[in-house]
């Protein structure tokens, strides 16, 4: 499916985009004479009209995707054309404005258009890259399976913690309760880990508990591992050994979950930029055309 979008019908729309770009360049080169190339020459108006029509058509992909009964071509074909012609738009619009930029609504429209196209390119990139990586993480399963295993490991760890000394038990329990996964947009995108543990500080007066970082669950694992070397009761090493094993497995699962969430978030976030900026572009484009004729 992913490959077929670009290779749809022998990359037919790639050649459309190349032809459109070449034609635009040829038209641009006919400018000159009395005026420097600019968006106000007849060539500039043609390029601008083509660019505006392209923007409107590219936006209609969102409508076409929701029109399940439409007979206006396959969505795959639309998407393939959307990708290629969207990139050709960058050429058409740049030639339309002839590289004249300034602090004005016209350049704002160009910047928004570029941002929309670039976010689309970013989306294309993650669509090719991330699904494979996500599949590798899930090893044929699903993210839900990872969470099920995590839930099971949490319960195992809690059960084992009951058989440990009070300090170790509360530390393990807090490491489970204060494990963070996902969260805000940035936390999901960058796989942020703000996990903490409550550790009783033996040096503090009244053995007060302090909240310390437990990034990647390493602090909890280190504590239990250290505790293992100091075990006194006969059964304690066995329990602690099992606990370390569970915590380490938990560490691996948490890494996978966070990476999975991050890759999935990147797979979506570009569209959260692409779509709103498209609306902003439509607004700026309309105003760009309007004010061109207000101050003719």
């Amino acid at each position: 499916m992913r490959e077929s979008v670009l290779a749809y019908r022998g990359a037919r729309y790639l050649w459309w985009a190349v032809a459109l770009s070449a034609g635009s360049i040829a038209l641009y080169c006919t400018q000159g004479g009395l005026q420097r190339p600019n968006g106000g020459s007849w060539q500039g108006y043609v390029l601008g009209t083509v660019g505006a029509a392209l923007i409107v058509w590219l936006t209609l992909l969102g409508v076409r995707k929701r029109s399940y009964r439409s007979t206006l071509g396959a969505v795959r074909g639309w998407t393939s054309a959307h990708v290629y012609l969207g990139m050709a738009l960058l050429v058409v619009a740049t030639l339309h404005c002839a590289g004249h930029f300034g602090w004005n609504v016209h350049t704002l429209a160009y910047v928004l258009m570029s941002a929309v196209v670039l976010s689309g390119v970013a989306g294309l990139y993650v669509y090719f890259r991330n699904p494979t990586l996500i599949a590798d993480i899930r090893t044929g399963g699903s993210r839900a399976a990872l969470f099920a295993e995590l839930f099971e490991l949490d319960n195992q760890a809690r059960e084992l913690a009951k058989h440990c000394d009070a300090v170790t038990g509360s530390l393990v329990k807090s490491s489970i309760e204060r494990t963070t996964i996902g969260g805000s947009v940035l936390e999901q995108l960058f796989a942020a880990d703000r996990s903490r543990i409550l550790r009783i500080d033996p040096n503090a007066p009244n053995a007060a508990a302090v909240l310390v970082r437990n990034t990647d669950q390493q602090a909890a694992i280190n504590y239990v591992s250290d505790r293992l070397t100091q075990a006194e009761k006969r059964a304690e090493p066995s329990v602690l050994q099992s606990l370390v094993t569970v915590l380490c497995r938990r560490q691996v699962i948490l890494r996978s979950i966070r990476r999975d969430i991050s890759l999935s978030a990147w797979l979506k976030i570009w569209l959260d930029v692409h779509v709103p900026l498209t609306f902003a572009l439509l607004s700026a484009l309309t105003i760009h055309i309007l004010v061109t004729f207000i101050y003719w």
Partner: protein
Amino acid sequence: MQALLRYLRQGRDRIAEYSDSEVSAASITVGSAADRHIQLLGHDVAPKHAAIRPAGDSFAISARRGARVLVNAAPVRTARLTVGDKVEIAGHQLTVIEAPAGFDLALTIQPNEKTAKSEFEGAFKTDLDQTLLSKRRTAWNLFLLISVLTLLVPLATAVVHRTGATTPAWIPDDTFWTAGPLIPAHAQAVGRRCEACHLSFFAPARDRECRQCHTKTADHVSVADLKLTRLGPAARCGVCHEEHNAPDGTLVVRDDSLCVTCHDAAHDKFGTLQVEKVSGFARSIHPLFKASLLTPPPRGSAIVAPLKVTPTGEPLAAAVNWPAVRTPLRTGQEQSHLSFSHKEHLDGNLVQRLSDSAPLGCEDCHTVAADGEHFIPITMARSCSGCHVLAFDDEAPERQLPHGKPREAMLMIEDYYVAKYSNPGRVTAPVAPRQRIPDRPVTTVACPSGTPLTRGRCQANAEIVDQFTRRGCASCHLVSDQGSGDVHERFDVLPVRLGRDYFPDLHFSHRQHAVQKQLTRDAACLSCHKARDSIRSSDLMLPELDKCLECHSDHAARDRVQVRCVSCHAYHFER
């Protein structure tokens, strides 16, 4: 409070299994998060779903906003709990039971067996859809923001500005609509007032606004001439001078298409106007040069001048204004009324500078004016008197005739000779003449007898005739001999007829051409002006088109300097 939580699960063979745990906390928290006292899984269970707190002598459950809690099958936000009450959250059953001794509250918890462990994911925000991100909301907010800031607010300021009022600089105004910066000169004149040029919406800037400042710029074709052509109405200023599109800071159109679009089709476009066809700057596509030469008006012409004034201020009653007529270089001749040989003056064997005895150079007489294009006019005082003096009697070389005042000169000669013969002792001893050029030999006049007055007059008349026919004035000027018996009425020095500019509608910088390839100074001048071959004042000495083409071309070429039409020609003329 102390709470007993009794988990009830179906074990193997569907036998119920109990698992008790004790909690000591201010409230019992319920949710899918791992830190809840009662952790329940499921899509419909929020991480922090609800809490059970003491309420007087009993307890109450309160659900978070949006969290669904049923108490005895009725959805509630908060509800008091008494023994026997059944709380249902996403299929999980919580039942309040009689608390054993030592406990304030006891609950049996029967998890929903249909809930998979995988639904633990619901305890976390693992999808962007669960965050504040909203494509739709952001899209419409951006749409409105841009519409307001870049259209509605500037439009309001544009209307306000048209009333003469101003708006604070921090408010986005209609300058945000600009298609590009103004050229610096216009930016200084107009500032941020778009309405200075754009008076009306949806209409191009009018010429009237341009002409408010540019009062002296005339059209390329006058209104009267335009009617004789097929060019149609004159184009707006903005068609050629496109503002907001001049990154180099000039609105002057330099492309040849400005000219050749019409002039290449001169036969078709210009109607009855006599305009030569021009397609570019090369042989056969550009007309040969024509110089504007002062030419006598035809007989009976109405161009009869008012009094002409000589450079020295003396009125010349006979003078008339000569019109400048464009004349092909190959046939054109100066009619300057001068007699001058450039060849002789440039010959080092004949003429040397007084200061260093070196041959004369061009710059000894011709000085480029401040504009680099024209020359400071040649005058007797500035250019000739260094070598040439107007002495008329070798016995009194300090006596000089006034230049440009022939009547006074005649009277001076007469006064001198009458005085000389009346009082010979006043005549000084002869000294060697100063000038380097031997004038023609003085004609000896025999006035041997008579009174000092008659001898003086005789000698004066002879000298006047000599000055006006053989030397003196006649050395450089053409003199009209009327043949009158009265010597005072006999001669007229014809006025000098040198134009100020051979090509008044062209730009040509002599200063820029002072160095040509390897040529400098006189060599550069003489490569165009064949002064070494000129023995007459009538010689034009102007280079033809071919000379320009030795170095210039109308297109980019490696061995040529490219010139445009407007490099030499002016489009607009000053009024």
